[in-house]
């Protein structure tokens, strides 16, 4: 290996780092420019979506285990921190951590049996687990069942993570997103990331190289669950009311996956881009057309989704990659085709 190639291999990383830095700086000052609360709220929704998508991507993208039941972790996060707050008066700083840990434990327990399943069977099993959980919570008196839980409105400030202004929420979720991206980035760069991709591509071959499928899939799922649950706790803090239908719902699971797929699965920034696009479509189609009551917003939203799936099956990042490859002067050596996942 010559020095030249080593350099060229490193160059894009530092360029990427610079890009990321610039993006982060932009994200940090954005709410100073966009001051209207509902616009800030819109940004927060994007960041929430991105955070969930990046977290999902760890198990669904890198490790290729398509979970369509991530709402279960989201819900566990939301309920744990809220219950700790309302019953024990514990601050959500601790509550969110506890929720994350509980979700990770739950992931271990659920992954153990579910990871025996492959492809669509695994996906269906995750849906089943999430639905069962929703039903159990709905019928649990301890968790107030379908009635849901209110967060106390008489508290506020950084100790309780409850604010009147949107700004603190913005920076908290931005921080959480950065944390989530950093975790995924660290995984991607370490042997774990390589193992995840190996498991996704050829599980049997990975085993022959000493990779324990169960162990690494469990790592993927529990890390992803931990981060997803933190997102759930954030939801509870932001909306100050949770019920099973809003945090354990199947539609949340689907949305989490959609965000990652839309941007480009198995890539660090894919879900962030996915969130920007999906949440924008979702919010604007609703605000522009939702009030008619004729279903127009759904039609537009759905049409956009289908168009993306048809014209850019490997996500928008994939599409951008394709475009770049078509540009004159692109070096074929720089082209790296990434398959999103293996069909079972």
């Amino acid at each position, binding site marked *: 290996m010559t020095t030249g190639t080593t350099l060229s291999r490193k160059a894009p990383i530092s360029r990427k780092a610079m890009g990321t830095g610039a993006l982060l700086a932009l994200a940090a000052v954005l709410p100073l420019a966009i001051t209207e609360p509902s616009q800030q709220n819109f940004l927060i929704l994007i960041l929430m979506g991105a955070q969930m998508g990046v977290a999902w991507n760890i198990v669904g993208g890198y490790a290729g285990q398509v979970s369509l039941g991530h709402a279960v972790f989201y819900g566990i996060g939301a309920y744990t921190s809220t219950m700790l707050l309302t019953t024990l008066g514990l601050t959500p700083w601790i509550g969110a951590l506890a929720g994350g840990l509980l979700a990770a434990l739950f992931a271990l327990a659920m992954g153990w049996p579910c990871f025996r399943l492959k492809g669509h069977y695994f996906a269906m099993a995750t849906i089943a687990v999430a639905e069962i959980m929703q039903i159990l919570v709905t019928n649990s008196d301890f968790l107030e069942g379908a009635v849901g839980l209110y967060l106390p409105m008489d508290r506020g400030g950084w100790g309780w993570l409850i604010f009147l202004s949107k700004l603190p929420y913005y920076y908290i979720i931005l921080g959480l997103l950065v944390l989530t991206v950093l975790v995924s980035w660290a995984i991607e*760069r370490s*042997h774990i990331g390589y193992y995840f991709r190996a498991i996704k591509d050829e599980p049997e071959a990975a085993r*022959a*190289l000493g990779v324990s499928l169960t162990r690494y899939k469990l790592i993927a799922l529990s890390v992803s669950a931990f981060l997803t649950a933190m997102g759930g706790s954030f939801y509870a803090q932001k909306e100050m009311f949770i019920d099973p239908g809003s945090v354990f719902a199947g539609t949340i699971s689907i949305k989490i996956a959609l965000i990652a797929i839309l941007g480009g699965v198995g890539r660090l920034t894919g879900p962030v881009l996915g969130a920007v696009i999906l949440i924008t479509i979702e919010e604007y189609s609703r605000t522009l057309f939702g009030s008619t009551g004729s279903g127009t917003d759904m039609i537009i939203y759905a049409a956009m989704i289908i168009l993306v799936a048809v014209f850019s099956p490997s996500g928008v990042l994939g599409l951008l990659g394709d475009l770049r490859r078509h540009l004159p002067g692109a070096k074929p050596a720089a082209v790296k*085709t990434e398959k999103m996942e293996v069909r079972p």
Partner: protein
Amino acid sequence: MNTAPLLAVDGLGKAFDGLVANRDISFVIHHGEIVGLIGPNGAGKTTLFNCLAGFHTPTTGRIAFEGRDVTGSTPEAAAALGIARTFQIVRVFQSMTALENVMVGAMLRNKRVAEARDRAEEELAFVGLSHRADTPASDLTVSEQKRLEVARALATEPKLILLDEVMAGLNPTEVREASALVHRIHQRGIASIIVEHVMEGIMPIAHRMLVLDYGAKIADGTPAEIAENPAVIAAYLGE
């Protein structure tokens, strides 16, 4: 030094609901030995590999590796002990480059990415694929992919490597290169068991040959002995 044989297989049998793929197979492999494993299609060669590498749990019999009973261990445990394998139908990691494929193998012994990369570069050079290091594995030819699998297996620092039809589809010149590669593996002190239908590839280098037919071992001897063995001629070699 170490008196136990590298691998001792005793009375191994494997059945898939009703269909017996391996029956009562016993043999030993010594350190650094090159052993050919031949037999008609469906004789149970791949199944035997799967049992040795922990992919199948044998129905009967014992497998001992360096004197330790490893019957029914998992593939990852077998790999950790030092049994590496390639697949009859190639299974490279499609989304990774050739180098990254080998790095995954190297990570078994050293989880540090940079060091795994160095190790992988060595192994790629060893099988003659250095020029393809940054090529996506899916873009390699099938024979290159087979060699890549060999490099990947070697990167796990095995004591025994199981090669399943790495010469299939090669022309005679390429077969000779493959034979030379096997020989170099031998020189590194690694024992190998090679499943092959290409006699020209295996006969010249194998120290010993095992022959399977209908799941049972029908011969075990030097290539010269095997070539003369009437049972082997009748079952497999023909003419």
